[in-house]
């Protein structure tokens, strides 16, 4: 597994858009991604895309418990979200004045999520270049990547232009969303996470199982699109 992870990481640096094909070829038949055309990011630049692959791979890694965020297409999900209402904060109150407050009052920055990603990735990669011999985040060993993510999460690592905590917060929130949401949004390819945890997805009719107490529901998941797992 470490060898494969290294392969993924290095491939991500060199040619991120080729990654899905590479990933599919090295993965089991359960992930028929090799057949799908590689997703080309619409919002993120190639450098940002490399970061996103590396970070998603650490937040939800591919391991013996099941597929990881990269394998399930979470970077694609996040890229699509950046272009949609979420990325543009279209349903949030974004009028000033902007003032800092206690954490209980939630997000109070003037930046939209897509701007937080852009500023956050740039700031993190700049930090990495200074600290790690001109390497960006995606070029680091996984242990160093995990340490950086942990420091962002705790606030130990923060930036002038953007809150490290807010950046990490969106990154983790969106990674989990992409991992667990319906595949129609670009992540959770082939309903990989749903199969792992046992969620039947969009079946949304359990009249035949409400009285089967203590008996595991037997049907595999379906997607809103009609895809069956």
């Amino acid at each position, binding site marked *: 597994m470490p060898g494969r992870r290294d392969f993924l990481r290095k491939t991500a640096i060199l040619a991120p858009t080729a990654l899905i094909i590479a990933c599919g070829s090295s993965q089991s038949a359960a992930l028929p991604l090799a057949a799908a055309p590689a997703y080309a990011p619409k919002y993120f630049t190639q450098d940002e895309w490399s970061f996103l692959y590396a970070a998603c791979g650490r937040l*939800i890694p591919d391991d013996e418990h099941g597929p990881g965020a990269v394998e399930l297409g979470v970077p694609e999900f996040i890229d699509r979200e950046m272009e949609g209402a979420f990325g543009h904060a279209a*349903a949030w109150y974004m009028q000033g004045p902007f003032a800092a407050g206690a954490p209980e009052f939630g997000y109070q920055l003037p930046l939209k999520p897509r701007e937080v990603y852009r500023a956050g990735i740039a700031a993190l990669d700049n930090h990495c270049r200074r600290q790690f011999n001109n390497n960006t985040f995606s070029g680091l060993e996984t242990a160093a990547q995990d340490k950086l993510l942990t420091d962002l999460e705790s606030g130990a690592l923060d930036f002038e232009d953007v809150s490290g905590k807010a950046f990490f917060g969106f990154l983790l929130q969106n990674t989990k969303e992409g991992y*667990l*949401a319906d595949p129609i949004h670009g992540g959770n390819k082939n309903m990989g996470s749903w199969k792992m945890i046992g969620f039947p997805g969009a079946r949304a009719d359990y009249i035949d199982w409400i009285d089967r107490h203590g008996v595991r529901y037997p049907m595999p998941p379906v997607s809103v699109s009609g895809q069956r797992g």
Partner: protein
Amino acid sequence: MADIRKPPVDAVLVGFGWTGAIMGMELTEAGLNVVALERGENRDTYPDFAYPRIADELTYGIRNKLFQNLSRETLTIRHTSKDRALPYRQMGSFILGDGVGGGGVHWNGQHWRVLPEELRLRSHVIERYGRNFIPEGMTIQDFGVSYQELEPYFDKFENVCGTSGKAGNLNGKVVEGGNPFEGARSREFPLPPLADVYGATLFAKAATELGYHPFSEPASNASRAYTNPYGAQLGPCNFCGFCERFGCYVYAKASPQTTILPVLMKKKNFELRTRSHVLRVNLDKRGRRATGVSYIDAQGREIEQPAELVVLCAFPLHNVRLLLLSGIGKPYDPKTGHGVIGRNYSYQMMGGVSLFFDHDKPMNPFIGSGAGGQIIDDFNGDHFDHAPLGFIGGGYIGVIQTGGRPIQQMTLPKDTPQWGTKWKQAIKENYLYSLNMMTHGTVMSYRDNYLDLDPTYRDGYGLPLLRMTFDWKPNEFRMTEFVTNKAADIARAMSPKSMVVKIKNPGDHYDTRAYQTTHNVGGAPMGTNPQTSAVNRYLQTWDAHNVFVMGASAYPQNIGYNPMGLVGGLALWSANAIRRQYLKKPGPLM
């Protein structure tokens, strides 16, 4: 100045959710020409809630497709009057409705009445525990209306909704199987209880063994096919697990769309105008009578709609803001305690226990209804002696499995990391085997928890946002500790592999980020004293007799239950007073 002045109507309804639909039905039945103004879009079961599109957690449950878009209007929040309030920029601790049906589209259908003693809380506490039991700064009041007076209207609303449940008290006699603590019902529920999920049966068994009195939660999710008194039809709930935050695709959840609109929308004396955002209620020169309302229509024009009767049917927070923006009633001043608009804002305090079972006990968490489950009411209201406990209020405890939507409803054991291999391992091992028990508790009203207009932040029309000043108080921390520890006892008796008890503790502040409940109440309290209430016991404003204010803004403090049964009952009670008394002789009803 208005761009357009519309022909006068008999009555205008501001907001078209549950109370707007109820009032629309009642006032058109009385022969009035009624116009309802709804700021959001029209929506109906088909196509807006149709399967499979509705079974999409991200779009509806997380990105809030059916809720208010906060970009144009929100409110600001602070903990104390010394703080600077900050905008509620994203939906968090409560979720505001929008569009036809309002919150009535995406509620759970938890359909409670109210406990008789809660309607006369101040009097009741003084009678049983003495005046000194009410702490300094707590401003609890009586509602000014009794349970007996409201009973016919509770009954009517339950029959409109096709509520599923089992009576525990029929005409004063406690009957087997229901809630023995409830107020007397004049007849059985219109439908039998919903079937229980596995976890609810485990809860009921453990609660019974501990000597408590479990019963099925009253649910406006139909357990059988049903035709209501208006002729609207409901289908049986299929436990889809996409209820709260979603519209119901099988016509099982009672909503304005499923129970009232099929009939109301056909009436010739009723007109609905969507995308019509009311700016203010207009008053005559003396400020004692409304002349109608002004609103911005879908094309951005300012419209004046004259009306003989104005009924505010928006969400409590919005009703209060409209009263303040319109200059109806004296704004509340926390320094002096004088004034009534914005007074006694309150909320509810939630706690709970998460249980994790061995793999021989799958809970199938995705099998869920909005309101089906088992409850105990032993620690709600005044069903236990508060004297040694030193707090007022209580809450119900129960297992309501509303769904296992994996982004929002993933429940994990204590100390699970937020990400990485261990997080993934935890969701894999626990998702199917987790169960949540909740404690749903009262919050009293206080002199320094209130609503007013924000001096800084404005909406898309340039008008001041509402400002909420609110934080938790010692009484509520004591309440939730007591009730949630009782829940933990029940949880232990259910023999989980592990459990996590969630209790708010002294020092915790109101947190606007994580969802808690949308039971925001008060701000325009009802009562019999114009010095301490904004509306009288018929929900008529003291200051302008042809303005009525529906909804939970009328609560002088919060109750232990979910509010909709009482809100619906109060709307019908108010409608009856309008029909029987007010229309015959317009003027103050008190």
